[in-house]
């Protein structure tokens, strides 16, 4: 049996490992390092638990915030208990139009989203609401966007029950 192929460039080692499962790296420090492919994949059974109504709301084209029953602090990204006073919150309908509080255009990203680049991220502020919502801003290029710009919610027709079931577009 021939042993694993040897390479002087680590990039070539990576290529070989990806296709053949193993390679030897002729390391400039003087060692020969055996490198193997070690796959890892997990399927989680993830419950949204107390946040469930929010994601069910997205599927019905609704944007739900939460308001503290005690101090009336209003969250655009919901939570079931208030971070200020610890009391329970109640659900309320967020406006579907807000303004860009901050934004960026990503030209790179995590592996999962790399194929979607470039994409815009925006934090949306809503009138009368104390916190923000992180979302994608679609239908606008880097050169179009500015802080204070109006944006409205658009919902995915076939829900995936992810926060990305909603995105915003210029209003």
């Amino acid at each position: 049996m021939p042993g694993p192929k040897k390479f002087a460039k680590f990039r070539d080692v990576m290529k070989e490992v990806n296709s053949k499962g193993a390679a030897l790296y002729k390391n400039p420090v003087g060692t020969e390092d055996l490198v193997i492919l070690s796959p890892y994949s997990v399927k989680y059974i993830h419950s949204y638990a107390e946040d469930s109504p929010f994601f069910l709301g997205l599927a019905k084209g609704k944007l739900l915030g939460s308001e503290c029953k005690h101090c009336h602090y209003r969250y655009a990204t919901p939570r079931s208990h208030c971070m200020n006073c610890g009391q329970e919150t109640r659900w309320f309908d967020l406006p579907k139009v807000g303004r860009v509080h901050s934004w960026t255009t990503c030209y790179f990203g995590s592996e999962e989203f790399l194929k979607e680049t470039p994409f815009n991220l925006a934090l949306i502020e809503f009138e009368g609401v104390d916190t923000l919502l992180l979302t994608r801003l679609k239908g606008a290029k880097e050169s179009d966007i500015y802080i204070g710009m109006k944006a409205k919610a658009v919902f995915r027709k076939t829900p995936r029950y992810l926060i990305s079931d909603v995105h915003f577009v210029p209003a």
Partner: protein
Amino acid sequence: MISGGVTKFAKAHPDMDFRLMVKRAFDYAMKDVPKLKSDDIESTRISYFSDHFARQLKAASMVQDYLGMNPKDSRRIEWGGATGGQAIQAGWETVASGRNDVCLVAGFETMSHVETWKGNEFIALASDTNFDYPVGGFYTGYYALMVQRHIYEYLRKTKFADIKDEKRAQRAATGEAKRIMAMVSVKNHVNALNNPYSQYPEKLSMEGAQGREMVAYPLNRPMICTMSDGAAVAVLASEEAAFKYTDHPVLIKGVGCGTDTMRLADRPHGRVPIFAWETDEYYSKLKYPGVHSFRAGRTAALEAYKNAGIRDPKEELDFVELHDAYASSEIQTYEDIGLCRYGEGYDFVDQGHPFLEGVDYGLDLPNRGTLPVNPSGGLIACGHPVGATGIMQGVFAFWQLQGTIKKHFGNDRLQIRDANRGLIHSHAGTGSSVTVTIMERA
């Protein structure tokens, strides 16, 4: 602190696994204090950030094992990007409480075992996985969101207030911020030319710094640190024990830690907790921290300064090694830790305050060197193997305060003359936790 060691950070160390990387740094530290024997070490605090990167749960136990530290007291420390800074404070607590006389703090990260984009995914899993990650989880994107608002608050509303057209005003402000962030990038890469532990030493020009590939607007490549493999250790001892092993220990004078919401979207818009030399009135119009500033950093600094008896950090510190994961967060951090007021960070750079004397940056710097920041080159030039990073800062600060930079770097061009007091700063996930530690020549 009585000794330290660093295994040079690299894109990959295929010749060493995490145990051997830590061992190398440990052996270096032990060699530096020959009187200290392994048996004298009573406990260890071992830090690494990610089980995903390590793909070995309880990896700290394997380090403990490899260093021959069993059956001594040990635990793993993890606190996101601030893991290393937190580990130093955990070691400090172990000694300061009187529980142990000598404690070893050791940290590492191996980030090369996955491709860069998978690594970005692992890091982004340290953001809310219900509400943040699925939107397009990418840490550089999060920091870009924060600096965009910082630019809006502190340049758009001031220097560029006269421009009526909103979009044009914001673009002009961002252009100015990019120029100043490029200066930070130049500073850290050029400083690194004299640090043999750095990974990206470069005689970077302003054109070079501004011209390269955009990653997340307005942050481009030279403004961003890279994932790395590496390790670092710090040996901490009680005041009494320290002088048994070395004539030149460094005193950990004050520690502080602060936190904030995991989600950027949840950051409050309230009042600024002020330093003794600031006034409430100055910030009367500012909603704080919003997404533009790090309340955790300010909280950590307030506690550390109180413990160390520091009233005005810019007068009483000789240098700072801070967590410049991004050139933007370096500028934001100046303001958090009170090297200047909120809103003055850009000018602090433009004036030259955080640059070193006697280093040629090719820049016109009228007030150069009043308070050098990241003389080592920081994370931008050294890399960021998370669990080791904060400890590396501690080691560089230790050598500065001992006056032994020449011995460890092979040249003294980065040695701050008569350095008596330094600050190290470690920062996690969009500012969700920050540590500040004050170190003094003993």
